[in-house]
C-alpha cells in the first residue's frame, strides 16, 4: 500500500497539493486521488456521451417528431445504485480516516495551543512557552489541545493535513505525527478579524535528538523573549506553575502529591499521585478515565463525578481558577507518577 501511494505521489504535483509531511497526509492524499480520478472519468464519460448524442441526433426540421423511449428498469436502478455505492464507499474510507485522525495515540506529546488575535501561542507541559513557532520531534505523535482567547480561530497546518477550530473557553483536540524534518506553515483558517491573514505560524519538525537537546536547553534556560501566555508565569513551565498553584489555592491540603513519605496522615481527597489516566470508580458505581477533561471537570464541578469512598467536601473552583490555571494544575498532576516521585512541590 505504501509503495502504491509512493509511486502515485506525482498526482500531488499535478493537483498542486501541499507537501505531505505527516502520517495522516498519505491517507488523505490517496483518497483524494481516487475521488479526483473517478470524477474526471465520470466527467469525460458524460461529456463524450453528450457530444456523441449531439452529433447523432441533430435537429433536421423545426417540428421534428421524436421517438418514444421509456427507460428500462435496470437503467433507473443503475442511476441510483452506481452513485450511491461509489459515494458510500468514499464516505466509509473517509470516515475511517477521520476517526483515526481524531484519536490521538496514548503516548503522544501534548502541546497546548492557544489562538489569540492574531498569533498562535504554544505551551509545552514541562517546557517553554512559544509564540507562532511550534517545535516538534519527527516521528512522534503530537497531540494539540487547542483553545482560543477571544474569537474562533482555526489551527490549520496544510502539510500535515490537519485543521481544527479553536473555540474560546473550551478545548478541542487534534494530533499529527510528522514524517519529515523541516519548517512548515500554520494558518488560521477561520476568519477572525483585521489581521486574520497574517496570523501565520510555523511548525519546525526536528530530529529527535535535536529536539531533546532543544527542550533540555529550554527547560534549563528561561528565554528572555518569552511572552506571557496568559496561562502561566513568564518564568515557569506549566507544571511548576501548577505545583505553585496547588499550594496557593489549597489543593495540596486535601490531595496528596507525594506518597513516598508514609508518615503523613491520609488526606481528605484522593491522592494526585498516579491519578492521570487511571480508572476511577465514581460514587454512583460508574467508571471514568481521569483524563484532562475529567480533571478539569472535577475542579469546576467536583460533586458531579465524585470518586467512591470520599466525602463530598470539595468546593467548586469555578471562577477561582482561570482556565489557564486549570490547565497548569492538570499538567502538574500529569507529572505525578507512582514510580517516580516528583521533585516538584513536595509538601
Amino acid at each position, binding site marked *: 500500500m505504501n509503495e502504491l501511494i509512493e509511486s502515485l505521489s506525482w498526482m500531488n504535483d499535478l493537483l498542486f497539493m501541499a507537501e505531505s509531511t505527516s502520517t495522516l497526509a498519505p491517507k488523505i492524499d490517496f483518497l483524494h486521488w481516487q475521488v479526483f480520478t473517478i470524477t474526471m472519468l465520470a466527467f469525460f464519460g458524460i461529456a463524450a456521451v453528450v457530444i456523441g448524442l449531439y452529433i447523432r441526433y441533430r435537429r433536421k426540421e423545426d417540428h421534428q417528431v421524436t421517438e418514444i423511449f421509456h427507460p428500462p428498469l435496470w437503467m433507473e436502478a443503475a442511476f441510483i445504485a452506481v452513485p450511491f455505492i461509489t459515494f458510500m464507499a468514499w464516505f466509509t474510507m473517509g470516515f475511517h480516516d477521520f476517526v483515526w485522525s481524531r484519536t490521538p495515540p496514548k503516548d503522544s506529546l501534548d502541546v497546548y495551543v492557544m489562538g489569540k488575535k492574531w498569533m498562535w501561542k504554544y505551551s509545552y507541559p514541562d517546557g517553554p512557552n512559544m509564540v507562532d513557532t511550534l517545535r516538534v520531534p519527527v516521528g512522534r505523535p503530537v497531540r494539540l489541545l487547542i483553545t482560543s482567547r477571544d474569537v474562533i480561530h482555526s489551527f490549520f497546518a496544510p502539510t500535515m493535513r490537519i485543521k481544527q477550530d479553536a473555540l474560546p473557553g473550551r478545548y478541542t483536540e487534534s494530533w499529527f505525527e510528522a514524517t519529515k524534518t523541516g519548517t512548515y506553515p500554520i494558518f488560521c483558517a477561520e476568519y477572525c478579524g483585521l489581521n486574520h491573514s497574517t496570523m501565520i505560524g510555523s511548525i519546525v519538525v526536528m530530529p529527535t535528538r535535536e529536539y531533546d537537546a532543544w527542550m533540555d536547553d529550554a527547560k534549563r534556560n528561561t528565554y528572555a523573549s518569552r511572552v506571557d501566555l496568559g496561562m502561566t508565569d513568564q518564568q515557569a513551565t506549566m507544571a511548576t506553575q501548577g505545583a505553585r498553584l496547588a499550594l496557593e489555592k489549597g489543593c495540596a491540603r486535601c490531595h496528596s502529591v507525594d506518597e513516598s513519605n508514609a508518615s503523613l496522615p491520609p488526606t481528605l481527597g484522593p491522592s494526585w499521585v498516579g491519578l492521570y489516566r487511571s480508572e476511577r470508580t465514581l460514587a454512583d458505581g460508574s467508571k471514568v478515565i481521569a483524563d484532562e477533561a475529567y480533571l478539569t471537570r472535577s475542579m469546576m464541578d467536583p460533586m458531579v463525578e465524585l470518586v467512591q469512598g470520599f466525602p463530598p467536601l470539595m468546593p*467548586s473552583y*469555578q471562577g477561582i481558577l482561570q482556565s489557564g490555571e486549570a490547565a497548569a494544575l492538570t499538567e502538574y498532576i500529569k507529572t505525578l507518577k507512582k514510580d517516580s516521585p516528583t521533585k516538584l512541590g513536595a509538601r
Partner: protein
Amino acid sequence: MSDASAGTGFLEHAPHFNNAAHEKRAAQMGMWLFLVNEVLLFAGLFTAFFMYRFLYTDTFRFLAFAELDWVMGTVNTGVLLASSFTVVLAVQAARAHKSKLVGIWLLATIAFAGAFLVIKYFEYSHKIHEGLLPGQYFSYDLSESIAKVKADPEKMLHINDANINLDQVGNGAPMFFTLYFFITGLHGIHVLIGMFLLGWMAWRAFKGEFARKNDTPIELSGMYWHLVDLIWIYVYPMLYLL
C-alpha cells in the same frame, strides 16, 4: 371561467379563482404554510433551550422550580385557553353571519389577551426587580434561594424526587433567564400582533362586514391566535414545570 358551484357563487371572489370556496381553500392553505414557518421560528429557540438545559440540567430545573412563578404561569395558560375558546366562538358566529356577535367574542378574546399581558407584566417586573435577568445583567444571589429551598422540607421532597443536584445549581443561571426572556418575549410579541389583528377584525365586525361576506378573515386571524396558544402550550411546561 366555469362559474361557481351552486350555493357559493353569489359571494365575491378574486378573478383568478373559480369561486369563493376555491379562494377560501387557498387562503386556509396559505395560512397553514405561514403557521408552519412560525412553528419553525420558535423551534430555533426551543432548540437553544433544550441544548442549554442539557448542559446545565440542574440549574435549569432548579430555576424552573424555585424562581419561576408557577401560579402565574398556570393562570396564564388558563387565560390563553379561554381566549382560544372565545375565538372559536367568533369563528362560529362569523359562519352564521352574525357580525355583531363576532365583534363581541373578539373583544372578549382581546380582553383575555390583555389579561395575559398584564400577568406577564407582573412576572417580568418581579424578575427585573430581583435581578433575574439575562446574560450580563444577571445579579441575583442564588445561594440564598438554595438555602431557602433546603430549609423547606416540602420543597426538598420535590428536589429529591426530580433528582436535582443542588450543588450543581448556579452555572448557566443567566442563560436560563436569557432564554426565558427570549421565548416569552417573542411569544409576547406574537400576542401583541394577534391583539392588533383581532382588534382590526372586531372593528370590521362591528361595521357589519361579516354579515354578508365570507368568514375567511375571521377564520385566518383565529388560526393565528390559536397558534399563539399552541406555542404557549409547550412553553408552559418547558419553562415552568420541567
